[in-house]
């Protein structure tokens, strides 16, 4: 009976489970896109570069910058709403705890390899 019922319901439960699974996947991709500010920051750096190279003028820079800031804020809101906090990038409130080390290749390499900073410094404003 057990075998029979699972055989009978298989064609039904199979696809439904599949759809649920793929919906979850879709939702996850959507969440990630909504909460990833990396492409926005890359655009911001490109924008700064174009201003420096004289490809765009100041007025255009200001306008595009405003647009990018709106998008950054939107990402931040989604992060809050999805309970992810502000983990990355230049938007943060810091707790009084930190790990500090010298980057690889300067001195004896630190045990831990940390990711790059979010592109400030020489790649930021000049």
């Amino acid at each position, binding site marked *: 009976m057990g075998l029979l019922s699972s055989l009978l319901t298989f064609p039904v439960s199979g696809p439904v489970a599949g759809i649920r699974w793929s919906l979850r996947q879709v939702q996850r991709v959507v969440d990630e896109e909504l909460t990833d500010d990396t492409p926005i*920051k*890359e655009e*911001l*750096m*490109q924008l*700064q*570069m*174009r201003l*420096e*190279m004289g490809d765009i003028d100041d007025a255009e*820079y200001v306008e595009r*910058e405003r647009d990018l*800031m709106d998008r*950054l*804020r939107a990402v*931040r809101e989604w992060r*809050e709403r999805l309970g992810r*906090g*502000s*983990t990355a*990038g*230049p*938007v*943060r*409130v*810091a*707790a*009084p*705890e*930190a*790990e*500090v*080390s*010298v*980057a690889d*290749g*300067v*001195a004896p390499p*630190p045990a*831990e390899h*940390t990711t*790059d*900073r*979010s*592109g*400030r*410094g*020489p*790649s*930021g*404003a*000049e």
Partner: protein
Amino acid sequence: MTMPAAEPLPAVPATATEEGKYVYCIIRHERPKEFGQIGIGGGMRVYTVHHGDLSAVVSDTPIVIYDPTRDNVLAHEFVNETVMREFTVIPMSFGTVFRSESDVTELLRSTYQAFSDVLDKMQDKIEFGLKVLWERDKVVATIERENDEIRRLKDEITRNAASSTYFARMQLGRLLEAALEEMGNRYLADVHDALKPLCVASRSNKPIGDRMIMNAAFLVERDREKDFDDRVREVSHRYENLLTFKYTGPWPPYNFVNIKLKLERAN
């Protein structure tokens, strides 16, 4: 019952406990120090918060998230530049806000040893940024001049515009791409070889946009700054017509110090 006639104003207004500290960098200094009204958020007073011989360079701020607008980023950079004239600094990332002065003190206390070690290692070292962009058309022209096979193929295609095959064009494109990549790598190796003897360390970041072939940071001893400058100038002369060099600094050693802060929610 008598009320105290005039309650003296509390030394610290109640709202001050709500006030955050924007942290620019960490330096070694034991006495209070002022850097002027240059802080982020409209010329806020920049001063130090201490623990032992370590100081955090801070300004007061509401607990907000700072957008990385040009104005904000420039304010952050300007403070660090100012501090760097006198001190070796460990720079904080843009936008680092602590809830209170005591949180800043706690950071210095709990990370004291690590900050001290890093300050020792960064003593009298500064960072320079070098971005190299190429003029693709000019590089292509150079390749066509120097590479016989590509030149021949191109001549052939131009001569027989009507009859030249799709295949020949594909072939040309492929050869050109490969030659471009090889040229790019050769330029990069050349620039690196020229600068390497003069720096303590270097790091490559991801190029920005499609014209950039190099986005690097170099850590240099302060007393070799001029040698390094001269060498950069020399290399950029060598490639005057093909490459554009964007040379910046001195910066605090952003790319050579890793600071992993534990973060809280903004609200």
